[in-house]
């Protein structure tokens, strides 16, 4: 989760690479939904430790229940975007929310496009 957020940050960086590279350099997000998703990821990364600890107190059979109820209220008070459940694994290039393969972070259409142009390493048309 943290790694994904970091990768997204790198990808959206507006720095020119020090060496001239033939790849496309995008200096923008594809759409606003992608921007919001990026914000959610960032916030989830920031609050991850807190959430983990409060949840450890909540999901417990040892501690008194009053304490757990207080913990419930506390976690609900955290910003809504800090929960990891709101993150959607969108396609990195087209921001498509569905049909995204997790390994490549690409939607099926983009994946097919690149694979047919032999730009996906180790990907071959299946035939058996």
């Amino acid at each position, binding site marked *: 989760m943290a790694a994904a957020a970091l990768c997204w940050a790198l990808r959206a960086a507006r720095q020119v690479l020090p*060496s*001239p590279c033939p790849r496309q350099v995008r200096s923008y997000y594809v759409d606003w939904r992608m921007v919001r998703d990026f914000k959610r990821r960032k916030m989830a990364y920031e609050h991850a430790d807190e959430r983990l600890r409060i949840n450890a107190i909540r999901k417990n059979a*040892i*501690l008194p229940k*009053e304490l757990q109820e207080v913990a419930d209220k506390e976690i609900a008070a955290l910003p809504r975007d800090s929960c990891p459940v709101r993150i959607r694994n969108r396609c990195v290039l087209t921001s498509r929310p569905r049909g995204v393969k997790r390994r490549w972070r690409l939607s099926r259409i983009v994946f097919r496009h690149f694979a047919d142009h032999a730009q996906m390493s180790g990907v071959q048309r299946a035939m058996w």
Partner: protein
Amino acid sequence: MLSKQKDKSAASKDSSPEGVAKKQEDGAGTPKQQLLDIIGDMKVEVSYRKKLQQLKASESKKQAMAKLEGPDSEGSVPQGVTEDTQRGKPLNPELVKAASAVASSLPRNKKQTESELLAQLRRHEETTDEQKKGGIINIRNVISEMTIKRQSPAQRGTRTSRRISLQLDEYDKRLRRERSSALPMDSRRSLKVGKRLNIFTKASTEPEHALKTVSSPTIWDLEFAKEVAAVTAQPPRNGFEEMIQWTKEGILWEFPIDNEVGMEDDAEFHEHIFLEKHLEGFPKEGPIRHFMELVICGLSKNPYLSVKQKVEHIEWFQKYFEEKKELLQEI
């Protein structure tokens, strides 16, 4: 050399009874010249014939005794002495006397020649002793004493080329000989010489000695540096340069692969596992203690967190429970 000695011994034997007067008459001209030639040509002999050596030794002893009895025969004494030095078995006092006589007879630096002769005698003695014992003659010791004639590599190259330009029959033999002779020399010379490449040892990052006078480089300096790098960076000419570029960018790992790149946890294992010392701020009994012990058990099994992070974890809980103290006391 051996035949020469035999002739000499024969000649000396023959001449010993008669030639005393003759040699005196000649003025030791020819025998002296011969003596000088012999001394000039003197080489270290490494012969493996024990019997011959023993024979010569006995002969030399007899001759030494015979010649030393004749006081006036300067010419004959040096001859016998040279034979002795050449065969030289035990460093007899007779031989020492003979050596001193030889040195005195020579026109050159007497003490130097005497010392050289004695050194030669000693060497002979060593070699013969080792042969007697049956031990292997350590040629290296012998060679190390001698001065090595060092040829320049250019000369060596020309020598090989000259040899190669000879007949085809001897081509292979000479090449092989040259190679076999050259290889041990090279390996002896160049195995442990030269800078270490640090391929397989962790290259120790030398501390930067050059201190920057400016505390921090300005933005303009950074921009200028970036511009220069962008202009001078040529596209990679081959796969190797491409891989170098990738390694610099961080795309490619450094080989040999270091499993602990980026991981700079200096803490020992016991600091990861035995975390009970951090539990001092908590009450010793009760559900909270129970809960914290479980937390510590889980942390001790976690290989992904550093010691710092684990300590922070525990401290967060401590802070949290302190804030909730009033609530806890109500319960």
